[in-house]
């Protein structure tokens, strides 16, 4: 059964009991919660996911709950427990989903040291992946969302998950977190896009989430080969500017933007080397989303592997 087909009472019972187990591709997460607002939010954003057996082995277990004691009643809060302990600051009671999403990001980033995790959006076309690494606020999520709404398959807006064995990218597919102006930009860009509730006044401003398309959810176990790395920067003063980035520089920028490159030591070096070797790398300054999406499509086509070139 998929999350969208489950009724509210069933979701509530799963969340309050054994947990709602979801498979994001590279990792499975078990979510528990006593927050009554959560089931409809999950149904809106995770509707396309099958409900897995909660007794099966999961990579991460999180529990979102209403705070105890004073914070239950006065300026109430929600807390997130990871494996029975609180590792993050609580959030205000009316922002359960942002805390859940942020907490899952944190848990996955700190626990999945069996992969190289780059801080990057990832989309794919014809099995060839585009990495969109960038610091927060540079428009990475907006651009990733736009590509996913224009024929690219979404793998993740947050993590490029690189396998050590072959340097292939695995999906860690979750809703795309859109912030502030980006929410309306994406809503106008693709009027059919499913965007969840807006949460004003989080520490990152207003946040809303774009639900991944059902066909992307269905394909989340298919890996993709790295082919193109684009460092995006939203810049209202330019139309569109594309500049090649030397591979050594791209390697360094990807490494410092990684969640676990240093911990992985030689495995991280080798895996990142494979990604950069297989990719052409560019810096992209853009102000118009449509033009940026077209440009990235063209760069991906140009970046065909040497063997396929004439």
């Amino acid at each position, binding site marked *: 059964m998929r999350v969208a087909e489950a009724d509210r009472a069933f979701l509530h019972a799963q969340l309050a009991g054994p947990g709602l187990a979801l498979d994001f591709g590279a990792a*499975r997460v078990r979510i528990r919660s006593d927050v009554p607002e959560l089931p409809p939010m999950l149904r809106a954003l995770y509707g396309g996911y099958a409900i897995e057996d909660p007794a099966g082995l*999961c990579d991460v*277990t999180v529990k979102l709950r209403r705070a105890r004691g004073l914070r239950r009643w006065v300026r109430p809060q929600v807390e997130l*427990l990871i494996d*029975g*302990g609180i590792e993050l600051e609580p959030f205000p009671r009316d922002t359960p989903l942002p805390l859940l999403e942020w907490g899952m990001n944190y848990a996955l980033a700190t626990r*999945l040291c*069996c992969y190289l995790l780059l801080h990057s959006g990832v989309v794919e076309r014809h099995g060839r992946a585009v990495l969109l690494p960038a610091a927060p606020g540079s428009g990475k999520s907006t651009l990733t969302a736009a590509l996913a709404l224009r024929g690219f398959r979404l793998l993740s807006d947050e993590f490029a998950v690189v396998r050590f064995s072959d340097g292939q990218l695995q999906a860690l597919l979750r809703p795309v977190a859109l912030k502030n102006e980006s929410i309306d930009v994406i809503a106008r860009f693709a009027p059919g896009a499913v965007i969840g509730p807006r949460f004003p006044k989080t520490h990152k401003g207003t946040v809303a989430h774009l639900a991944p398309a059902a066909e992307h959810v269905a394909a989340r176990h298919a890996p993709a080969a790295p082919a193109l790395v684009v460092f995006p920067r939203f810049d209202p003063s330019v139309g569109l500017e594309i500049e090649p980035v030397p591979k050594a520089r791209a390697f360094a920028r990807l490494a410092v933007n990684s969640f676990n490159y240093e911990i992985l*030591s030689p495995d991280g070096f080798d895996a990142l080397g494979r990604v950069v070797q297989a990719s052409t790398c560019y810096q992209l300054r853009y102000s118009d989303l449509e033009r940026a999406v077209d440009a990235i499509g063209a760069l991906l086509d140009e970046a065909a592997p040497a063997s396929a070139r004439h």
Partner: protein
Amino acid sequence: MLLALSALPAHVRLLLQSLTEPQRCASLSEPAWDVLIRAARSARLLGVLAARVAAAVSFDALPEVAGRHLVAGQIEARFRRQKTLFLLETVAPQLGSPETPRVLLKGAAYIVQGLSMAEGRLPADVDLMMPRVALDGIERALLDAGWQFEKTDPYDQHYYRAWSHELPPMRCAGQALELDLHHTILPPLGRLKPDTDGLFAAAVPIVGTSFSALCPGDQVLHAAAHLLQDSDCTGRLRDLVDIDSLVRTHATANPSFWPALLERAHLHHLGRPLWYALALTRAWLATPMPEEVAARIAGFSPPWPARATLCALVTRTLPPVNPDGEPGLWDRLASRLLEARAVWLRLPPWLLAWHAANKAWRAWRPGGAS
């Protein structure tokens, strides 16, 4: 039996059993793995578990998710081992004359000594013990080399220097681990008074390095003394695993280990912490011990009310929290009581009163909380 394994929660028994009999992990169910991985991670024992399972079974025979988290544990342990060695190599020139003893404590010692028990450990800091008279010069050299104190508050600095067995922890850009410079192993004004000169005199040079390690008996006693007297005494199962591993390592390598351990326990007046530590490791980790040694260690036994109370408390506080639950009221109460006991052992009453008053004043004064 005060410390029966059967009295422990299921997740703790599973973790202990997997550490002592890793070959049995080959037949664990998926739900059991789910609990085991999380319990091991929260006890900071995932790397040790991975090392022991790897020696007993192939990860390929395990469920995929379990295998990848064990790999993650091995990777983190490898990183921390590398960072420990890097730190020691970097600070060596700042440590003054090589004639001044440089005694590595705990994890850094196990790594540099090449003990197999170091495999999978996840050290968060490097503990180095040097004579108190040498510390001023070394501190200056380290500060010149870019090391900085984490705690810059004058009272904290004073507290460490006047009453602690170590300088405040130091950090340096480019170093992943903290450096703790000790001049002895326990707070000098506390109730337990090990023989510091004896620690240095018996330290064993580590061949091929400028460092030495405590002698085997002192290594065990150091770990035992900290097991139940550190202020954060919850979730310290890994310290117990260290004690078990140390005893197994040294007893196998050295036939005079047991008599020497008893002699060192008398010398340092650490018989009672040793009794508690070995009672726990024997009950939970089946640490082997000759009968005649057990009989002599029984002489260190505390009176039964103290014994019964402490055993009841540590059964609640030492194991990691249930990954599917959270500490109950009794667990939290047990932690508070053990913390109070730890403070009582570490500080004389006048210092405790002075310290508490200072803390309260600093928390209360306008803008003063740090």
